[in-house]
């Protein structure tokens, strides 16, 4: 007959209580938010933070960009750019190696190329095989799991030219590294600005999704990320006022940041790059003007030290974003790997530059494929409209259910209210993001959650016709409606899963609420309502059932 073991009852009510407890912080959204911010500010230590009892859960449902306002960017990393940089970096090594074997290969000359290859022409075609063999000796094994055993460069020779390029395996490994590096750098830059809960995710092989709530516009966000903040230290060949100067192979012409009309001819291969920078701080030079001091890692420090020792009296350029920040003359051998960048900075600019340097340079440029800015007022309007719609929808459904099923309708209504509470509890627990379509998902769930109850109630009505007594009818009603409830909800759940896997942004937010809504509505219908019905039945012991 109608019996539910005590431990099951305790478990069911326990789960409900837990769910509601998890949902509780959302009822005091701004208070808990302030509390969480303060706790985060104390590095997770909640002592002395008021406003919210620390023993209560403080997880909140995150509001999506469309509700809170903010900016969304989808960036594609130009991974190919790194190939070229790598080849440029290889040139000094190749040059030094072949120069040592000049008697075998003749003179060597770098040919211009820009497709990720290094093309070298040698003076003595007869020495080609020897030269290829020598350059091949520079190759190293690929450092990745899939590319194990392969070497990182492919060297080929034809006539009097040697072509060097990255191998396929190395390109894959490089791409992956580039994207991961970019992701990390973007994360650090956004964290420097200190906004709340940014989402920075890798998407596919070479894309990065960036969502920052509360920021004014996508343009502002792009400024923080800095499309191509590449820092390099390059040897200066000469300076000129003619911007149209044609550089020879392995050289480039870059403008000065401060002096309009001043250009520098630089060696393309850099001495040290920003990746080897470990620290940068705003500071002041000996004249008290704002400057930025920096420090290299050991390998960067060694390269920088060696270069300065060999080039005392020559200028070298500090290049940021293809502009020469300054081109000081090397006064002495700089050992230890630290230095200072001076220029016509304001204090603000030097601070900004230090942040940029510290966060590291992006290894490659970014293309923005998608940009969305949502104003906070629009989000607030949407929340307001969503709230009202939810309340009206909820009340309408409650009244409708009560009018149709009387007391049993009331039971279903209690379950429905608990259901919405549980949805919020689960959303807070997994830290899901609520979007505008997500609110629609909840409203839809309110409508559909009654389905399972309706199925059961209708079934009980039918079973009553064959008159086996109320207890038997209730039991049969639940048993026989179960297969329909399960099959119907599994198919809908499949749809929610597919939406989650293939969707993005708001659509994904919708799929999460839809999926959770299905889970909780099945749970409330087959456990909670049933338990309430059984508890009522035990007390009332009705002879007939009106449903």
């Amino acid at each position, binding site marked *: 007959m109608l019996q539910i073991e005590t431990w099951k009852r305790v478990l069911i009510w326990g789960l409900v209580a837990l769910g509601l407890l998890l949902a509780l912080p959302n009822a005091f959204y701004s208070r808990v938010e302030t509390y969480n911010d303060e706790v985060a500010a104390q590095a997770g230590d909640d002592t002395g933070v008021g406003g919210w009892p620390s023993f209560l859960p403080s997880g909140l449902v995150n509001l999506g960009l469309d509700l809170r306002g903010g900016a969304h960017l989808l960036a594609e990393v130009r991974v190919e750019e790194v190939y070229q940089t790598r080849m440029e970096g290889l040139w000094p090594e190749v040059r030094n190696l072949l120069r040592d074997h000049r008697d075998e290969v003749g003179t060597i000359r770098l040919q211009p190329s820009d497709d990720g290859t290094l093309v070298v022409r040698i003076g003595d075609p007869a020495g080609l095989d020897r030269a290829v063999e020598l350059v091949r000796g520079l190759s190293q094994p690929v450092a990745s799991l899939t590319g194990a055993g392969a070497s990182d460069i492919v060297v080929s020779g034809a006539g009097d030219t040697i072509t060097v390029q990255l191998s396929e395996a190395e390109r894959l490994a490089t791409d992956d590294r580039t994207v991961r590096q970019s992701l990390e750098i973007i994360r650090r830059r956004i964290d420097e600005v200190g906004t709340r809960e940014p989402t920075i995710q890798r998407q596919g092989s070479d894309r990065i999704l960036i969502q920052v709530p509360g920021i004014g516009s996508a343009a502002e966000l792009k400024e923080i990320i800095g499309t191509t903040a590449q820092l390099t230290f390059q040897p200066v060949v000469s300076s000129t006022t003619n911007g149209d100067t044609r550089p020879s192979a392995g050289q480039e012409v870059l403008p000065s940041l401060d002096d309009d009309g001043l250009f520098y001819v630089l060696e393309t291969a850099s001495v040290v790059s920003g990746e080897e920078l470990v620290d940068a701080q705003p500071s002041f030079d000996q004249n008290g003007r704002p400057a930025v001091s920096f420090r290299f890692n050991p390998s960067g420090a060694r390269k920088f030290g060696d270069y300065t020792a060999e080039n005392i009296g020559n200028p070298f350029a500090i290049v940021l974003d293809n502009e020469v920040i300054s081109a000081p003359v090397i006064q002495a051998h700089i050992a230890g790997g630290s230095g200072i960048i001076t220029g016509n900075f304001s204090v603000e600019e030097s601070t900004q530059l230090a942040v940029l340097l510290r966060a590291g340079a992006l290894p490659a440029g970014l293309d923005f494929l998608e*940009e969305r800015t949502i104003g906070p007022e629009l989000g607030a309007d949407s929340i307001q409209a969503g709230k009202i719609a939810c309340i009206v929808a909820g009340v309408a459904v409650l009244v409708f259910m009560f009018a149709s099923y009387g007391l049993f309708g009331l039971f279903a209504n209690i379950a429905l209210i608990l259901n919405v509470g549980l949805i919020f509890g689960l959303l807070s627990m997994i830290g899901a993001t609520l979007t505008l379509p997500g609110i629609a998902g909840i409203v*839809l769930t309110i409508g559909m959650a009654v389905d399972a109850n309706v199925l059961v109630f209708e079934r009980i009505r039918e079973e009553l016709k064959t008159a086996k007594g109320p207890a038997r009818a209730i039991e049969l009603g639940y048993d026989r409606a179960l297969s329909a409830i399960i099959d119907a909800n599994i198919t809908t759940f499949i749809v929610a899963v597919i939406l989650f896997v293939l969707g993005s942004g708001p659509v994904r937010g919708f799929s999460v609420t839809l999926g959770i809504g299905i889970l909780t509505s099945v749970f409330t219908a087959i456990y909670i309502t049933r338990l309430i019905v059984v508890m009522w039945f035990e007390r009332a012991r009705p002879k007939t059932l009106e449903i």
Partner: protein
Amino acid sequence: MRLRLVPEETHIDFFKYRYLTFGISAVAMVASVILWLVVGLNFGIDFRGGTTLRTESTSSVDVGAYRDALDPLGLGDVVISEVFDPSFGEGKHVAMIRIQAQDEQEAVAAETVATVEAALQEVDPSIRFTSVESVGPKVSGELIQTAVLAVSAALAAILFYIWLRFEWQFSLGAVFALFHDVILTIGVFSLLQIRFDLATIAALLTIIGYSINDTVVIFDRLRENLRKFKQKPLIDVMNISVNETLSRTIMTSGTTLLALIALLVLGGDVIRSFVFAITWGVVIGTYSSVYVAKNVVLWLGVKRDWTKNSGGGAGTKFANIDA
């Protein structure tokens, strides 16, 4: 006194006019496809690339003046429309401006957005841009692919699940009904030229979810009744099943529609097309569960020699091998 939308016992012959209803469905589907091909869908920027700006101003929207300001910029196809919503108070005037993707640009051009904003600010200094969204053509192409993939994957997964739990005839019937719902929704979107974007795809999948829910409930009853009434013709068993579940069908559709209509009226204009799609889908889905899915099953027929079977679905086949 209980509210009863459906009398306690109904004996409606749902399949009396089955040729007519199925004919109407077929014609509606063909019309939808024709509309889709001839008129086309009003794709949002998610699928065609470009930029949309939502403007908000205290002074009323002068579409002509906006257009005059934007025309000299040579941006190609620019669509300006004023948005009305009962939730807007006095002195709140909203417009949507859509600009096509600019030629030969893989990425999004921030300069274009900046010039558009500046030009509009000259017309109306109080104008604010509450949302600006740009999608590059590269992504929009992929989004279409993903959308088509999502809908196909959902249909395939459901085909498989129903086949597993019921018979293949049920599975085909259910998926055909879903296909019917999707096509008709696309037809309505083409006819009314409602914006079709990523959210609409989510709505389509929700419709699939709702419609299959409805279909499965009736199938479940049919499966049960097929075992109960072994001698009755299939059409009669179907009628009994639909009649028995009618009350539930109306109740569930009723509550869902109540909730959706509240959202449609009060939920704001931002998600209106999304909610509209779902509302339409609930109506169509309820209809198709009875009139499309069942009709297909009726035509395909169901194996009735359940002599040795112990359960539904796959078990039947093994039982038949033994027999």
